[in-house]
């Protein structure tokens, strides 16, 4: 099947082969006439040559049809018209027959070739439409990079080419075809200059308006490694504002000696190149749009964050400035109580400001990926007790109970970071519970994690805030003074995530809130960059 297909293609592509085929047909018909004549002296068998002309026209086209017609005329004149083997003709009646044969041959041959051409064109158009539709779907839907190889293979099969190579302006490549041609195609020369690296270019032929060229090249030394390359430019419709425009090529390799690319194949190549150029442009626009959207959202978030930060920093600042200015008032004589109150306000609010700035720095460092978790083996009980001790020293009025069972296994963690997490959680509990209640810190192992808990006897977490608990700057209104930074829980959340654990909060059935976080007992991998972790959680949460 394939051999037959190639044979027909050869007849069509190669004019020489077509003409040889026409002569062969005429010879065949001549043989048949001679054979018939031997047995029965039939006077006029010239019409049989029309069969040869028709066959040549249908299988090989117009020129072979003309060749067949002329050859038929000559053959009949030389072989079957007296005097034999001479161009002269004895009887005037024979002249009529011969002329008639020539005219009939030429006309029917051209008509048949025309019909055949139309049929072929229709078939090719249908083929082009199908292929273009498939290519359009391939590059229109998916990522162009994924579709490129399929497109190259499809083109190669459709055009029965030796190889097809696609190089996009972005540098993306795909190849289909013989290996020698493949490697060659990828790097064969620049479009305009007609030079091909490492090989001879016998001829550069430019086709109309600069859309494409044909390169005649040889790869290697063997004759069958010689190809004609047809190359079409793939260029994005819009040039980049800066720098020169990158070029892409769609190259088809045909074996040397094939007929020129049919016009249907040319159309298919041009259409495909156009399709690819559009796909490249579409993809560029799409990625630009995505980039712009991401930038816009980031900007919005930054603005919102900045507004909140500036508001939250100004609040303690207002109390500090106001208290200090009050003390400086010359027309008022403050009593000891008032003076002390103002000074305490300045000290408290100053500390709050400091805490806020520290948390902000933590947050931005973690989010920028600047905080490395320094994990080492630690006794979880000691970490918990130290954090509770620190919280006690900062808030002497409050009671912290530590509940650590003996025999907890050592855990790999960053003691400073986890200490900060526990302190933040304890301070958060202090802020939201009455002074006379107790905050309990506890640790226990469960499956392959260790769980740290900070529990209080306060009013619990209101339903409406549970969702935003770990967002930066989200503050619930406590029954006590609102002294939080709005950042403590967000920082704790990020630090726990950086350890590969999770921080959760729930209301206890017996009343009060419980903040719990887990740390893996056997870390699957070295906890590394906090920012990687936060990125992953952000995705999981959204």
């Amino acid at each position: 099947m394939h051999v037959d297909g190639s044979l027909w293609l050869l007849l069509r592509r190669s004019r020489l082969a077509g003409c040889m085929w026409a002569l062969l047909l005429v010879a065949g018909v001549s043989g048949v006439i001679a054979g018939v004549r031997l047995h029965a002296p039939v006077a006029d068998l010239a019409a049989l040559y029309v069969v040869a002309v028709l066959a040549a026209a249908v299988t090989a086209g117009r020129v072979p049809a003309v060749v067949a017609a002329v050859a038929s005329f000559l053959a009949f004149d030389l072989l079957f018209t007296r005097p034999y083997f001479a161009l002269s003709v004895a009887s005037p009646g024979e002249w009529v027959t011969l002329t008639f044969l020539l005219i009939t041959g030429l006309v029917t041959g051209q008509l048949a070739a025309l019909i055949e051409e139309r049929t072929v064109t229709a078939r090719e158009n249908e083929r082009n439409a199908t292929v273009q539709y498939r290519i359009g779907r391939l590059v229109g839907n998916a990522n162009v990079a994924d579709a490129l190889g399929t497109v190259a293979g499809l083109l190669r099969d459709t055009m029965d080419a030796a190889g097809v190579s696609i190089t996009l302006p972005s540098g993306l490549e795909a190849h289909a075809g013989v290996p020698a041609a493949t490697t060659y195609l990828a790097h064969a020369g620049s479009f305009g200059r007609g030079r091909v690296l490492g090989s001879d270019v016998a001829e550069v032929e430019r086709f109309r308006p600069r859309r494409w060229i044909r390169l005649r090249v040889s790869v290697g030394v063997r004759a069958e490694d010689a190809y004609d390359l047809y190359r079409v430019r793939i260029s994005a419709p819009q040039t980049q504002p800066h720098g020169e425009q990158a070029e892409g090529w769609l190259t088809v390799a045909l074996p040397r000696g094939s007929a020129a690319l049919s016009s249907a194949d040319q159309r298919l190549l041009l259409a495909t190149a156009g399709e690819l150029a559009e796909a490249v442009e579409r993809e560029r626009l799409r990625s630009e749009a995505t980039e712009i959207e991401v930038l816009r959202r980031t900007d919005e978030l930054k603005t919102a964050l900045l507004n909140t930060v500036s508001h939250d920093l100004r609040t303690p600042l207002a109390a500090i400035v106001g208290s200090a200015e009050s003390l400086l008032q010359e027309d008022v004589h403050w009593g000891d109580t008032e003076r002390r109150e103002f000074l305490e306000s300045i000290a408290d609010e100053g500390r709050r400001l400091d805490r806020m700035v520290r948390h902000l720095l933590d947050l931005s460092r973690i989010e920028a990926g600047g905080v490395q978790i320094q994990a080492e083996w630690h006794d979880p009980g000691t970490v918990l007790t130290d954090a509770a001790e620190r919280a006690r020293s900062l808030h002497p009025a409050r009671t912290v109970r530590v509940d650590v069972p003996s025999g907890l296994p050592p855990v790999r963690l960053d003691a400073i970071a986890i200490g900060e997490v526990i302190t933040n959680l304890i301070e958060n509990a202090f802020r939201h519970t009455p002074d006379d209640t107790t905050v309990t810190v506890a640790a226990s192992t469960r499956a392959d994690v260790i769980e740290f808990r900070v529990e209080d006897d306060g009013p619990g977490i209101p339903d409406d805030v549970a969702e935003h608990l770990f967002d930066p700057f989200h503050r619930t209104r406590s029954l006590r003074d609102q002294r939080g930074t709005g950042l403590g829980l967000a920082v704790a959340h990020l630090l726990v995530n950086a350890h590969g654990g999770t921080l959760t909060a729930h209301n206890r059935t017996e009343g009060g809130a419980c903040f719990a976080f887990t740390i893996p007992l056997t870390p699957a991998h070295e906890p590394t960059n906090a920012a990687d972790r936060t990125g992953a959680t952000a995705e999981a949460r959204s």
Partner: protein
Amino acid sequence: MSAGGARILAVDDEAPMQRLLRRNLEARGYQVETAGRAREGLGLFRSWRPDLVVLDLNLPDMDGVDFIREVRETSAVPILVLSAREAERDRVAALDAGADDYVPKPFGVEELLARVRVSLRHAAGPLVGNDATWRSGELAIDLDRRRVVVRGEEVHLTPTEYDLLKAFVRHRGRVLTDRALLHEVWGPEYSEESHYLHVYVARLRKKIEPDANRPRYLLTEPGIGYRFAEDAL
């Protein structure tokens, strides 16, 4: 109760800020109540009837702008907004909702006190001079100090009497219906209780008029209501 300066209600959820406002305002002779939540503030506003409200926009239970709107439904009391909110649109929203002034945090104590004085002065409508005192003939009303002086002597007014007089002064020269006065001084739910008004007008006349039977200031407009004579001499 009219002893002491103007009544100032400070609504701010930050305790240090509450303390700061209370100490400074009390040191200047004002009476101060503080509230940490909007609901509490609105309750105090209705029961205590302050002459000025100092308000922080960030409140735990209600946005400050909504607080302003709610107050403005029934009252023309001056509202001075204190806020750390930076954006121009926040200031505009507060002023549009009915706030009289906007002081950004952090603020200077002197500036705050000056703005308090300005707000109290404006509460009496346009006044000549730079203090918050309205004078006409032998009557002087110091809105800053909540003092009423008749013929050189301080007169003791109950809070309701004072509020009624303040309303008359603010709308001086204009005829006021019973309904409008009741709405402004007692609140919308008292709009029909004209006898309250008549009783208090009679008491006020006794306290500030040279002759209660032939009033110079508090004139009756038969069938309509009352008018406070602006240029009584």
